[in-house]
């Protein structure tokens, strides 16, 4: 670890990792007291990834956490009470008891998109947020996380490929924690490095030690800067290990003992404390101050969460639809002149034209066929069939405007359909 962050940045990373672990330790206690109504997932040993990567984002940027990214939420500004109340299904929680865990978001202030349990779905969503931000001139970067297991889903591929074709300012953190529930990574992916997946999309990638929070931060920062500069999406594989089972119910006895021992010795907080001490950024007194601060905060947040009521039963029937402007004002925040995307400024020359094609008029003035399934009305049918009969190809394809557009045109005819 090279020392080139500010003192405050070093201490912020430490604080958020400690807070991350403190929040999760508190939740384990709540879980054992049956105060958490559903499942509890742990990011023990992976805090450096959540914290280091989210810390690289600016306030205006957007993130979408996965189940083991409580740390990223804390960095983005979510108070611990929201995390507690989500898990406890409380009425004051962000989803008012309608969903649990890290499944909540904030469109207006913190710029967080709520995850769902189907892995990979967030990737095209965050690509969409990224290109919408670019469209509106907001200069934002979006970030989400995926596991080694989630990287095998179809939508991972669809989303990352789409993001790459759009050069979306999007950073994907692939947390390779070696286990997808009980299935080891070597049985999921025939690759040594999951970062190699990036090659398939023609995008840049990094491999980083996920248990080294400073390395994680620096790598993420570089990726975020590159994405913001217009280099397109970037994939970061963070190597780590899932210390707990898939969730609290799972003792993870399928994990070899020596593997667990190796990674436990590489605890990211322990490693970082050693670094901070050796660099004289943290001493016993400083550590105690942080301990006390976090303890006091968590006690306060936990008290608040525990005193929050359960949602009233009838609330279950509410909120399926947005009822209009009184419910939500959907409004884009333009940070560029919107005339740029309106005609005449937005207009571009025709990329290709086939005379009469599609306009409902054939080259000789008759009805042009478009596609099977769009045969014309019976009155025009005889005439149309005649026109369909000659097998000659469309007569004129206009000259391509540029090499770039020519490629697009050539690619638009698909064999599949």
């Amino acid at each position, binding site marked *: 670890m090279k020392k080139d962050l500010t003192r405050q940045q070093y201490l912020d990373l430490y604080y958020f990792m400690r807070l991350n672990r403190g929040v999760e330790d508190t939740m384990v206690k709540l879980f054992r007291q049956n105060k958490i109504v559903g499942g509890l997932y742990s990011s023990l040993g992976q805090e450096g990834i959540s914290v280091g990567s989210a810390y690289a984002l600016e306030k205006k940027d957007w993130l979408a956490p996965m189940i083991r990214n409580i740390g990223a939420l804390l960095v983005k500004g979510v108070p611990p009470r929201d995390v507690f109340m989500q898990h406890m299904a409380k009425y004051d929680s*962000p989803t008012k008891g*309608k*969903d649990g865990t890290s499944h909540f*978001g904030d469109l207006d202030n913190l710029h967080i*998109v*709520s995850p*769902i349990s*189907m892995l990979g*779905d967030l990737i*095209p*969503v965050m*690509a*969409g*947020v990224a*290109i*919408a*931000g670019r469209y509106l001139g907001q200069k934002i970067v979006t970030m989400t996380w995926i596991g080694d297991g989630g990287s095998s889903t*179809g*939508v991972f591929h*669809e989303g990352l*490929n789409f993001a790459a*074709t*759009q050069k979306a300012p999007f950073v994907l953190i692939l947390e390779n924690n070696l286990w997808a529930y009980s299935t080891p990574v070597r049985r999921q992916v025939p690759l040594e490095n999951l970062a190699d997946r990036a090659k398939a999309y023609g995008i840049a990638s990094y491999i980083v030690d996920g248990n080294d929070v400073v390395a994680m931060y620096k790598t993420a920062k570089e990726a975020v800067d590159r994405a913001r500069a217009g280099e397109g999406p970037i994939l970061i594989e963070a190597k780590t290990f899932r210390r707990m089972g898939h969730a609290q119910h799972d003792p993870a006895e399928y994990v070899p003992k020596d593997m667990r021992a190796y990674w436990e010795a590489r605890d990211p907080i322990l490693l970082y404390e050693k670094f901070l001490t050796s660099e004289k950024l943290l001493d016993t007194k400083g550590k105690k101050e942080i301990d006390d601060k976090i303890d006091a905060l968590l006690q306060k947040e936990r008290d608040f969460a525990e005193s929050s009521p359960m949602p009233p039963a009838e609330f279950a029937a509410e*909120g399926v*639809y*947005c009822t*209009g402007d009184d*419910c*939500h004002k*959907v*409004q*884009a*925040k333009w940070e560029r002149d919107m005339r740029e*995307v*309106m*005609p005449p400024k*937005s*207009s*571009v*020359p*025709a*990329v290709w034209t086939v005379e009469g094609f*599609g*306009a*409902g008029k054939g080259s000789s003035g008759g009805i042009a066929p*478009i*596609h*099977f*399934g*769009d*045969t*014309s*009305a019976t*009155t025009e049918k005889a005439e149309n069939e005649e026109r369909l009969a000659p097998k000659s190809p469309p007569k004129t394809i206009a000259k391509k405007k540029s090499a770039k*557009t020519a490629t*697009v045109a050539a690619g*638009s005819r*698909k064999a*599949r*359909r």
Partner: protein
Amino acid sequence: MPAANESKTNGTKTTNGSKTNGGGPVTFLEAIKQAMFEEMERDPAVVVIGEDVGVYGGAFKTSEGLLERFGWERVIDTPISESAIIGAACGMSYLGLRPICEMQFIDFIACCFNQLTNFVAKGHYLWNAPAPIVVRGPSGGGVHGGPFHSANPEMYFVHTPGLKVIYPSTPYDAKGLLKAAVRDNNPVLFFEHKFLYRRIKEELPTEDYTVPIGKAAVRREGRHLTILSYAAMMHTSLEAAEALAKEGIEAEVIDLRTLLPLDEETILKSVKKTNKVLVVHEDTKTGGIAGEIAAILCEKAFADLDGPLMRVASLDTPVPYAPTLEDYFLPNAKKVFTAAKELARY
């Protein structure tokens, strides 16, 4: 459905009697195109995203000219990735955009079922995040598209709280409802029956208009029985109603237009008058909207019914390819006529 054509070329009058633009009657397809053009002109937050929607103008040319007018940022050609289309559109909507997604054929909506039903549909309920996106595409059979280009998958989504489902039958409604869908803050699925694309024409009003989502339309007044239908089958039902009239049976034909939310009020009002109900849909029979309507009538209008609810629907099979098979598979005016006559006699 082949015999249904006659009833579809039903002249050039507008269905609401308003002033037309004088540009002559336009097709269903043109009405869709006009809706997208006008919404994009009106609001720079409206963008179009889908496969071949830009350079090519869409497989059915519904977005032809959009790219040239609105540019690359607003008309987005995507890879063949339906989940990415819906996911990206959803993400864009979080920043206040109103994307119109095209499914090249609505059959392919199955590829993004998860993204739609789990992500998009649940967002508002779970975390107060509206997703104002429209997903539109050509649907329906009768054009020999075969089992993967003829689907009517509306009921998968009618069963999904959080979505709205529209299935219009006239150019006027198609344009007005598509505009309403774009302006709605919820995810709206918009099914376009491709059999109707160029078989019906209608004069459209000059001025900007929308058609309210969730309202059915009475297409023909009658007193002996009510035929509830939508999309292409609405025209088939009208054709059957004309034939029934010659035998002294006056059928009331109601065009549902929106399947979710369903206009129960209009349905119940008509049932009070006619006391008999026939539901006609091109979707396959089991699990079709007719079953849901039957349940609603049992719950809310049991005492008004003077006969069993009857239904004419497609066979419970995939859509077959050969014209002989597909004709047998689909409902037609004769089947509707026969069922209606039986019901009227009941």
